[in-house]
């Protein structure tokens, strides 16, 4: 008989605990988030295939791997694009692809994304019960440097990959090119509509001229 995933449930419980600990250390963000208490967000990871549900409650969030409830907003995408959305990593202007599919209340998603970006993780406060104050402070500074470096590195890597894939190799279209393409298609669609209306108009006039006059 199949078993629910004990390890994945434990992992999700750990993530929930970490997020809520972070929220407790940032009361301003927690208060803003609690305004959405009762809302359910669904995240569908495309690779690896995984679903995660976040129920916003007064004290933070509750995370679940299954839910039969209709989410207020659901986001589908790959982990990197989702991380970029949540952590507010600078989106690469060059690369097309990896778009997130969003259904439902976009304003809620935007607000939660903004809150996640503003969440000031106090690593020192999280670690203090385990390591003591002085070590926690050092680790907090280290974590901030590490995350700052990781974010810059991600942006640089994205820039360079975007330049290479979009510009030098031509493997991917540039966002600007696709935008212009969409503009051209829109323009062509408008021209076709106008032409069709003109043809229809001429056809009507021709039919009227052919018909015998009383």
């Amino acid at each position, binding site marked *: 008989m199949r*078993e629910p995933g004990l390890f994945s449930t434990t992992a999700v419980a750990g993530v929930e605990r970490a997020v809520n600990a972070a929220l407790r250390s940032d009361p301003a963000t927690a208060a803003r988030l609690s305004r959405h208490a*009762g809302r359910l967000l669904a995240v569908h990871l495309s690779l690896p295939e995984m679903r995660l549900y976040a129920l916003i409650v007064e004290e933070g969030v509750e995370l679940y791997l299954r839910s039969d*409830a209709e989410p207020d907003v659901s986001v589908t995408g790959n982990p990197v694009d989702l991380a970029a959305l949540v952590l507010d990593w600078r989106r690469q202007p060059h690369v097309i692809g990896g778009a997130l599919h969003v259904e439902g209340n976009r304003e809620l998603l935007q607000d939660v994304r903004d809150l996640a970006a503003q969440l000031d993780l106090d690593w020192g406060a999280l670690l203090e019960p385990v390591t003591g104050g002085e070590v926690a402070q050092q680790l907090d500074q280290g974590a901030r440097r590490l995350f700052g470096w990781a974010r810059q590195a991600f942006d640089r890597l994205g820039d360079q990959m975007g330049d290479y894939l979009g510009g030098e190799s031509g493997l991917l279209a540039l966002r600007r090119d696709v935008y212009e393409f969409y503009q051209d298609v829109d323009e062509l669609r408008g021209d076709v509509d106008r032409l069709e209306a003109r043809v229809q108009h001429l056809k009507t006039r021709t039919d009227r001229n052919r018909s015998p006059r009383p």
Partner: protein
Amino acid sequence: MSSNDDNKVTHFGYQQVPWQEKQQRVAGVFRSVAAKYDVMNDLISMGSHRVLKRMTIELAGVRPGQTVLDLAGGTGDLAIKFSRLVGDSGQVVLADINDAMLSVGRDRLIDAGCGHNTQVAQVNGECLPFEDNSFNCITIAFGLRNITDKDAALRSMLRVLKPGGRLLILEFSHPVHKPLSKLYDLYSFAVWPKLGKMVVNDSESYRYLAESIRMHPDQDTLKGMMDQAGFQRSEYFNMLGGIVALHRGFKV
């Protein structure tokens, strides 16, 4: 009560006791441990009961607006989660036969801000005082083992479930692997009473816990009892190698 009922005996741990006496004895156990029930659960399960309850909640599939009965709900940890899942339009009933446990549960519900959509009821699981077809979901976590007439309790739960509703029974069960079973016996009979003595000054209650688990029906027997009571699509999920099992059945 007939003289036949007077002569019936049942088990209380490894002891045989008169049928009518078990309820009072179980009540005594829980009165003794109520104040530190959650701490003891964390200690003896090494925190794993929280993950098991989380899985129960996920399999309950509760949605906003639904009604949930958390039977033998004790200190209310499942009821608090359900209260948030059903939202303002739903309703959760935290029910337990034991007033001491229920008192702790009621306080926790209020402290968690769940008073608006929860009710607390002292009930006997064998004859639930609710109308037919009242609940979308019933959960009973680590409680069925202590009920004297389990068949009557299952029938009563089926009666108050709405058609399409589901019952989830989270309960200690029987390990499926021999070496794990030996290790588990050693741990539960040697360590739990000592922990009980240290934390709540009561080793007997935790000896009863270890014994009552061995006397509880195994996975397939309990599934058969659910089928017999009238549940459909009954199934079970072994957790921690069968130390705990989650049974689920539907009223169709």
